[in-house]
């Protein structure tokens, strides 16, 4: 089936304005009759719940943490992009649009990306009004910094904690609506099923993580803002609770999963220290503004103290390979380049899995105080984890899974193929194509939550009668029975291996065979090994305790079971895509080390339909058209 994204046509700069006018409206007095569920309270979900509540809808918001303020958007360090052009350096909505399309390696929809660039400026204004303390200069104006994949300074920031400050802004707006009674907040709840009645999304089933009780909630529309899935690699920069579960349950109820193989490996993370490690820590890409990336030219120098390696014996490989972007080459390119150096035997640190990020030149030029002011908290964090002082010796960095560009398929209105199911932020596939540029995740989350969904959900709700299905409908009871049966099964197996062991194993297979570089052979290996591992899981997992209490092992068992299914789809998508683009690098398809895209055969969104357990999923395609940006080889040289 050919999918239709329902994008507006006509001159691109008028598409969103025209579409907003064309959307139907819900009368202010009628809004309170509509129930809207928002799952996840990060930038996308928090902003959506707050904005929809303020409009007058009856909102129910859910998160698995103890408070909506803890969603993993909080960990974003570097900044948020906007086309304000405050520095007068040539930025514009068109340039942000262009950079995002090109950065995404021509695998995103033009109209969606245009809208994102257009509303980016409103986001900055909104956050300032909320009291987000963005960095300012001495005259009191907003300050900007540069980020990878752009030649203008368009990134706004709040020290090294931009995500935290933006999330607390959204959380404060959400708190205001909770107080006003327009939003009812349910924390420590995990969504374990989507309830679909006659093909329309009507609600969710959640587990109360404190009592273990199953709870049903019915609504006229369900918004998933449930984040990304790179914990499928086990070690990633995501929080421990991030999972594919909500999206996977929706997928199994019919929602198409688009481009799962587009995963982003962030180039600057603290290298792994041991096999007990539970997660990896990212160091903001903004560090590449002032840090120079290098490895020793000679293999025999790798064991030496970095400060003892002569300037002539260092290979500043990003500056050498990409002179015009240098250390600010986009993430996918910088990550692969790091892997290449390490594969060549010139990596540093434990296992030779690391490259240096060196601030000596910047400290000489600007002074240690300036560097401390810009990145102090990152240097502190680095020292806490590694016991090394980044001001005195170069930091060691290695790429780590960080973000998923793929996600549930949505149309221009952010609605999935299931009517009434909307997907926001990282959970959808829409704007980043095959690679996301730095400082664009925060932009997308807030754009979807503050400025897109408040319009597009009205267009849908105006066409449906409120309250048609209640939580006493038979489908809700069935959903609870199904979820309970699954939970009982985890608890009854009483095998020999813990949930963590299985997650480490599947994550290891994914990183090894479906990580920074993939081949037909490595993917086929995974497609054999993952089903076997899954089978073993269902025979040999050990989960203690009961379902009627707070049980973290049981929570993790469910997330792991879903990763064991989803990982197979990810590999299948990677195997079918016989090209290299953005975060998807197939070693067979390269031209002198650079990714080789195949626009003749693969210029489409690949959206997978679930066909039942043990059955092959079906691929649906949405062709991509580029009328405004010339489809060209992506070069940063």
């Amino acid at each position, binding site marked *: 089936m050919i999918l239709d994204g329902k994008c507006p046509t006509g001159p691109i700069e008028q598409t969103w304005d025209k579409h907003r006018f064309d959307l139907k409206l819900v009368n202010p007095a009628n809004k309170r009759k509509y129930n809207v569920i928002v799952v996840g309270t990060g930038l996308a979900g928090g902003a959506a719940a707050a904005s929809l509540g303020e409009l007058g809808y009856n909102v129910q918001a859910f998160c698995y943490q103890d408070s909506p303020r803890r969603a993993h958007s909080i960990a974003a360090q570097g900044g948020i992009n906007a086309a304000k052009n405050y520095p007068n350096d040539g930025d514009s909505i068109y340039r942000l649009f262009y950079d995002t399309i090109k950065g995404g390696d021509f695998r995103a929809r033009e109209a969606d990306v245009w809208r994102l660039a257009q509303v980016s400026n409103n986001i900055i204004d*909104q956050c300032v009004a909320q009291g987000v*303390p963005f960095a300012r200069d001495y005259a*009191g104006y907003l300050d900007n910094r540069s980020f990878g994949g752009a030649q203008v300074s368009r990134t706004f920031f709040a*020290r090294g904690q931009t995500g935290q400050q933006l999330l607390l802004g959204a959380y404060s707006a959400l708190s205001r609506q909770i107080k006003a009674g327009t939003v009812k907040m349910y924390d420590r709840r995990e969504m374990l099923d989507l309830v679909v009645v006659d093909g329309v999304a009507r609600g969710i089933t959640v587990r109360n993580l404190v009592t273990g009780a199953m709870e049903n909630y019915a609504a006229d529309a369900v918004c998933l803002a449930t984040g990304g899935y790179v914990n499928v690699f086990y070690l990633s920069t995501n929080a421990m609770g991030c999972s594919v579960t909500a999206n996977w349950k929706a997928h199994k109820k019919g929602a198409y999963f688009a481009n799962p193989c587009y995963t982003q490996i962030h180039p600057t993370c603290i290298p792994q220290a041991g096999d*007990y490690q*539970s997660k990896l820590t990212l160091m903001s890409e903004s560090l590449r503004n002032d840090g120079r990336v290098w490895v020793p030219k000679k293999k025999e120098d790798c064991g030496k103290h970095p400060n003892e390696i002569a300037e002539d014996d260092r290979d500043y490989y990003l500056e050498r390979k990409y002179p015009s972007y240098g250390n600010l080459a986009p993430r996918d390119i910088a990550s692969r380049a790091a892997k290449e150096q390490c594969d060549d035997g010139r990596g540093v640190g434990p296992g030779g899995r690391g490259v240096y990020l060196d601030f000596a030149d910047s400290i000489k030029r600007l002074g240690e105080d300036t560097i401390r002011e810009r990145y102090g908290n990152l240097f502190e964090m680095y020292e806490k984890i590694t016991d090394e002082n980044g001001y005195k010796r170069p930091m060691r960095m290695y790429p780590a899974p960080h973000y998923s560009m793929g996600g549930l398929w949505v149309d221009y209105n952010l609605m999935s193929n299931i009517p009434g199911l909307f997907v926001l932020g990282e959970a959808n596939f829409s704007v980043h194509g095959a690679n996301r540029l730095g400082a664009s995740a925060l932009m997308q989350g807030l754009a979807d939550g503050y400025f897109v969904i408040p319009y597009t959900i009205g267009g849908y709700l105006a066409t449906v009668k409120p309250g048609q299905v209640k939580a006493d409908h038979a489908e809700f009871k069935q959903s609870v029975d199904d979820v309970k049966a699954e939970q009982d099964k985890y608890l009854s197996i009483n095998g020999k291996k813990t949930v963590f062991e299985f997650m480490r194993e599947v994550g290891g297979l994914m990183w090894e065979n479906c990580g920074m570089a993939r081949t037909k052979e490595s993917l086929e290996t995974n497609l054999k090994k993952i089903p076997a591992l899954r089978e073993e899981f269902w025979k040999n997992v050990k989960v203690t305790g009961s379902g009627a209490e707070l049980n973290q092992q049981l929570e993790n068992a469910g997330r792991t079971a879903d990763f064991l299914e989803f990982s197979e789809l990810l590999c299948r998508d990677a195997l079918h895509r016989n090209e290299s683009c953005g975060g998807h690098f197939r070693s067979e398809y390269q031209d002198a080390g650079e990714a080789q895209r195949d626009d003749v055969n693969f210029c489409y969104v690949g959206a997978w339909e679930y066909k039942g357990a043990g059955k092959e999923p079906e691929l649906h395609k949405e062709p991509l058209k580029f009328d405004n940006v010339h489809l060209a080889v992506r070069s940063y040289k």
Partner: protein
Amino acid sequence: MSDHKTMTLTLIVWRQKNANDPGKFETYTAKNITEHHSFLEMLDCVNEDLIYAGKDPIVFDHDCREGICGMCSQVINGAPHGGQDRTTVCQLHMRKFKDGDTIYIEPWRARAFPIIRDLIVDRSALDKIIQAGGYTSCHTGGVADGNAILIPKPVADEAMDAAECVGCGACVAGCPNGAAMLFTGAKVSQLALLPQGKAEAAERVKSMTNAMIECGFGNCTNHYECMAACPKGINVKFIARMNREFLKAQFA
């Protein structure tokens, strides 16, 4: 960095089935721990052993494991987050301990934070304080350009110092009175400093301090334990600023 040397530690951990259970300390042994383990990874290892033995693992709140989400919350040897300067539990590493150490691990203890299970407490009282007024009442859309109101760098920087709070509640756990003055003072100060928050400053400080009392938090008697416990180094000067704002609000 010696990867081969490992530690064996004795853990004395608070175990409590649920809010109604009286709870008690249990003793466990952590084996094969290296200096590179984070504190929570050390607990992960202990939990794996407990699961193999068919016992209930120790439950504790945690999520980002990079010191920013504010979810982790343990009192270690009497100090919230373990007592390392500006460090959350998840960022505390085992190189701060030595082989043979005995470590006491307890939940946050405060009247306003009932224990849910083991090391997990209910901190929704902090959300209630924010709901009482920790925001500016701006609407989505329809706001001025970000540069329309200039904010001098020292003011923006001081607001950011206050805004760094991660809402973990260590200040409450560290305070002998179980007060949330540092938490509330930080939010009140951030918004009172910025021009965007000034319009509602008087109303805000009154309703937020009121919520603080209603939730069962104590008052400040200048122990400064909150600042010592704070993983973000929030300064007690923000409590003083809140008190000034509170006084000003009486005449507003």
